[in-house]
């Protein structure tokens, strides 16, 4: 009886202790900025025309808010409806259609618009930048819970100890032979419990570590030329596809060949932008980096360029998938209409590129589970008659839609063959 009670006590303590450190953090909600970066930034800037119009003041230009939402969700449909403003816009931007963003909810769009409003014009002073940062810590209660758990655990321990003392006293009074108290480090139940916990935690960490072998999130090798995506894609707003030509056509997005670089750099021979710094904080001379390119290209300034003299640049490869994985860019970017930033992060803000995602299978699968198939504007999916019916009849929640998983996107032989 006694031993049983003691065991119960110890396990109770242990459980409380265990709960104390197993509390995790919850995921943060997406905000307008991230939404903008992942969905819009490839073609739009806030204060500057690019592939699409500058977005500042977009709400003033679209008088009907519902129409603006409809436009963002499915521009083709609005164009079809014959809206004059939409069609003029389409003509103005040389008939480049905006992809449909049916996955964005109304709330998302509102967040987006709020973000666009909040971005100050480049010339204007930043009002109250410090004030904006204030409520950052709000919503994270982990520390509070931790302290609470610890206090409760201490209280429970004290109570247990008190209980044990009282019991001993009462035993003494009633004439039972006193049991030699066992210190907790020799208490078998404690030892067993700690062993089990250690085994579980150790095993978890070991297997997690093993799984992470060969993964290289944040991998940022030194490249032969300090090439800044920030300068090219961010500041100068060059479309990704201008250089990564294969991204709509094939497996590889492809790294541009020297002649593509030279299209612009034949004329742009010095760097005049903001100062550049490398990872170590040292200043980088942009003009010198352009000269490095000239060396690879075999180009001498002032003379006509002979492209045949070019030598390829041996970049250090950052994104490496194992050989048994088949990944195709065009499937994701063209058919799936996924923005580059979804996997590569805010590339337009990176000077030197680093690996943004861990490129693990779990990461892939997770996205396939959550991403909706671009059913609407792709004739290929007309074969999924059943799903179309179900969506119509409401059997499938149209807000949730058909995820990639639903049409087999998490099956082995979609990527491994």
């Amino acid at each position, binding site marked *: 009886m006694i031993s049983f009670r003691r065991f119960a006590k110890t396990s109770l303590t242990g459980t409380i202790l265990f709960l104390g450190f197993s509390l995790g953090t919850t995921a943060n909600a997406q905000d307008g900025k991230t939404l903008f970066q992942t969905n819009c930034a490839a073609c739009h800037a806030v204060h500057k025309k690019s592939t699409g119009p500058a977005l500042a003041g977009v709400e003033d230009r679209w008088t009907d808010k519902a129409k603006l939402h409809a436009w963002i969700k499915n521009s083709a449909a609005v164009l079809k409806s014959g809206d004059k403003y939409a069609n003029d816009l389409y003509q103005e931007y040389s008939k480049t259609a905006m992809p449909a963003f049916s996955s964005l909810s109304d709330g998302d769009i509102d967040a987006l618009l709020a973000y666009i409003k909040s971005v100050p014009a480049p010339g204007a002073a930043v009002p109250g930048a410090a004030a904006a940062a204030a409520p950052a810590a709000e919503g994270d209660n982990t520390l509070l819970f931790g302290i609470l758990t610890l206090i409760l655990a201490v209280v429970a321990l004290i109570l247990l100890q008190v209980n044990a003392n009282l019991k001993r006293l009462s035993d003494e009074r009633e004439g039972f032979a006193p049991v030699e108290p066992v210190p907790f480090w020799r208490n078998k139940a404690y030892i067993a419990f700690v062993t089990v916990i250690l085994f579980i935690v150790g095993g978890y960490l070991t297997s997690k570590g093993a799984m992470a072998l060969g993964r290289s999130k944040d991998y940022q090798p030194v490249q032969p030329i300090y090439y800044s995506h920030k300068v090219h894609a961010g500041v100068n707003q060059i479309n990704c596809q201008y250089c990564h030509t294969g991204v*709509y056509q094939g497996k590889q997005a492809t790294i541009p060949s020297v002649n593509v670089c030279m299209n612009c750099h034949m004329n742009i021979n010095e760097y005049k932008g903001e100062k550049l710094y490398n990872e170590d904080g040292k200043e980088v001379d942009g003009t010198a980096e352009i000269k490095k390119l000239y060396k690879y290209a075999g180009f001498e300034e002032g003379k006509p360029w002979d492209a045949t003299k070019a030598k390829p640049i041996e970049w250090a490869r950052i994104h490496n998938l194992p050989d048994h994985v088949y990944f195709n860019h065009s499937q994701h970017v063209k058919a799936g209409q996924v923005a580059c930033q979804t996997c590569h992060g805010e590339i337009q803000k990176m000077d030197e590129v680093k690996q943004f995602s861990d490129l693990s299978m779990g990461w892939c699968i997770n996205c396939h589970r959550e991403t909706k198939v671009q059913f609407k504007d792709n004739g*290929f999916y007309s074969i*999924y008659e059943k799903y179309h019916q179900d969506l119509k009849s409401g059997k499938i929640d149209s807000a949730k839609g058909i995820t990639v998983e639903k049409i087999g996107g998490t099956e082995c032989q979609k990527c491994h063959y």
Partner: protein
Amino acid sequence: MEQKKHWQSFGELNQSDAYNKDVKDEFREDLPFVADESKSTSFLEAKAPRRDFLKYLGFSTAAAAAAASCEMPIKKAIPFANKPEDVVPGVSKYYATTYVQDGDVVSVLAKVRDGRPIKIEGNDLSPITKGGTSARVQASVLDLYDTARLRFPTIDGKEVTFEAIDKAVAGAISGPVVVLTSTVTSPSTKATIDQFVAKYPGSRHVTYDAISYSGMLLANEATYGKKAIPSYHFENAKAIVSIGADFLGTWLSPVEFARQYATGKKLDEKNPEMSKHIHFEAVASLTGSNADEKYLHRPSETGAVVAALLSAVNGQAVTLSDAKLKAGVEKAAKALNEHKGAALVVCGSNDVNVQIIVNAINEAIGAGGKTIDWSVTLQTRQGVDADFTQLVGDMNAGSVGTLLVYGANPAYTWYDAAQFKTGLKKVRTTVSFNTKMDETTELCKYVVPDHHYLESWGDAEPVTGHYSFIQPTIYPLFKTRQWQDSLLKWSGATTDYLAFLKTFWSAKVGGETGWDKALQDGVINPAAGVAAGAAFNGGAVAGAVAAAGTAKKGGEVELVLYEKIAIGAGQGAANPWLQELPDPVTRATWDNYVIISPALARTLLHIDLNNGGQADAYEVNPPKKVVKVTVNGKSVELPALIIPGTHPNTIGIAVGYGRSEKMGKSVVGTGKNVFPLASLDGATVNFTNVNVTITATGDKYPVALTQTHSRYDTTQGNRTEVMKELTLAEYKAHPTEIREEREAELKPWGGLEKFESQGTIYPVYDRPGIKWGMSVDLNTCNGCGACVVACTAENNVSVVGKPEVLRGHEMQWLRIDRYFSGDMDNPNVVFQPMMCQHCDNAPCENVCPVAATNHSSEGLNQMTYNRCIGTRYCANNCPYKVRRFNWADYNGSDSFPDNQVGIVNDVVLDMSDDLTRMVLNPDVTVRARGVIEKCSFCVQRLQASKLVAKNDSRPMVDSDIKVACQQACPTNAITFGNANDANSAIAKARVENPNRQFYVLEQLHVLPNVTYMAKVRNLEEEHPAAGAKAEGAGKKEAAAHQ
């Protein structure tokens, strides 16, 4: 309802104990490690000592730790310096070109991936082949990356530069010059040869074919006045009689003929009519196996049979001693006469007289202008033996100053190679353009290796007026040069061959645009002409018939030398894919052997195949008894294989083996050369011999036969649930027979209609979107094996080498099962391509402990190699035995080189050479040791085709997707597509053929996605007598089973 008994092996026919035990075990060997080998206890009884366990555990931990602590190497990503505009890395491009080898011409497309040709596909624009290919065409891409290719020009075996050799040859060429080639069909090459020959007066061009068709050429000259071969139209023939012509396998233009023949064999359920094919032969061949009726005769009787057929066709009496044969000839004559104007007779003999009689028969049955077209001629064989004999004479007489050899290899293929070799020594200057160090090149002083066809420019004219173009698909890998360039250079021309070719064609095709289009299409076809006959001069017929009557009488045993589909006259011997392709008829790999009949086996080898024990002993043990065959004092010792369907007094041996070891690793230790057993018979080479002696030597030699591998059990006996065959008469009388039979089989589980839902306790799943399906028509499949090699090329299937095939470890994802039925001495044969059936209720899936094999929503049975741990439960549970296990590191894909050395043989090591590996398809994982693999329905192609449709924003159509086996098939026997799409060919094939369609082992409720269409043989009898007898026996066994 009644079905014939089909059997794969003699054990199955006899239902021997060994056979029945064998079919139960997929894996016949124990795991490799047994604790105490001296006691040879089984693995389960073996003790695994604690120390061993700790050792393995410790090693694995240490190895994992060591591997983990290594720093990640920096991988480079190197883009183009200047990217060509139309090249997208990772996207394959297809270039039209032409497979040309010793006269054989097939228009093809080369799939080029990132600058490397990796796969050959047929060119649909060619009216000759209509996209069909053969095993050798499919395998030709591997020859490009052959490590044994000559890599630079040599003089006396020493490397020199082109300038040096040009200079040396220019000084050494002296008249008279002879250009010796195999058949050249290229008009521009002929022009270069003419130009070269004109430069050196007294010179000439001699064409030499290893397998000569001079008999036909001379006979046609005698009767039609043209030394040419007409084009044939098997598709127009309702009655086809072949006397020893293997036109589906090796005769003249087999890809073309297979396609034509299949049109006659395709069965329309609403109007069931088929062509009738009667075959006469001495040794079992592929074409004979496909015939509706087959009769056996001795080679010495060929003349008599042909003469008898002529008189029978003309309504005269037939005199033949063999009653069966006589009945066959009468039947053949009847069929031919019934279909006058739609009948065709072909003969494989190289005897002028025999071919003259065949021409007379074709005249009598009105073949000219209908099934034989003289308006265009077939150019793929032009060699006349007399020309070559003359050349050998001249060489020996010392009257040849210079010999230039291209393509031809008489030092190996000429019956009297010794005489050719002595002659060669007397020629002052010898030059070889051959791509490899073959037997003739070895003896030549100057060697200027030619490009592989995938590196070349050129053209070909297989049939007059039909042009096919060759364009390079890769920059030459080695320091080689097109032989036409050498000829042009040596004849003093200043242009190179490309310029010559362009000028040659420019005017004909309409300038640069026309030329570009010709290259893009790969072919230029003439306007469809009207088939025409030719004036027949019957003067020689009487003499020929008389000569046939006085032919040499055959001795006790006669010999036929034949070509194998894969090896040909030796061209395929150095190609591991072809060596490992099981011969369709014998199912043997890596060797040649003596084919003998079951009757001869009884007397010569004392093996009675009807005796269960003796049959098993013969069949189960790879070492086969060796026999010694002696012909005119020359003898050869080879193992004997017993092949039913061979004449009791005839033996057959394949040519093309026993090649020089310099040809590559795969020729080492494979077979013996039997070209010396041929003889010169008057003006033509004779590949038969009517009197040979054969004795058993008492030795044994292992032959890697695959016939008894991957056998599977059939619960009902007789294989009726695996193979369904009918006669045409039966089908006409009772078209729904097979459907009813299936209905009866499935009755206990709801019948055909409700079988899917009622035959199982599993739920029935929805299949929205895509559902892949395949249908194989057993009527048009002729077993040629093009699909097997295509599959190997597409899916990076490993070559395992002879020792591994002997152990049943071959890796081919697609095998062609050969079934016999009926009379043991002359059985009917059916071929059944067998690959993963992609069962919707797959038994392999639910036994995998790690879910490495599971089902996709599109109906694919998926195999995930990186998840597989190699328990092989799936293979054991597969009812069709189509799963393959990587017993060794065949691809060199492990990190430890020691996993290959000493375990796999040189051929396999050579296949993982850096050069050979360039042939691998980068979209398909190369499998490591210890994992299972199997047919994936070419999932990489399915995914690619889906993506093309998605990017075009349209539903997928049939033309988007062709799986490798389907693409390669010359007869379109395989249909594949999305069965959910009512407009797809696969859905139509299933709807339009409800009566012939069946699933293999349907009653198991594994729900395969592959349907077969039953074989219908064009016979008048509803139940062939022999079949009925065997069937009775089968029933007894079935009863015994229950």
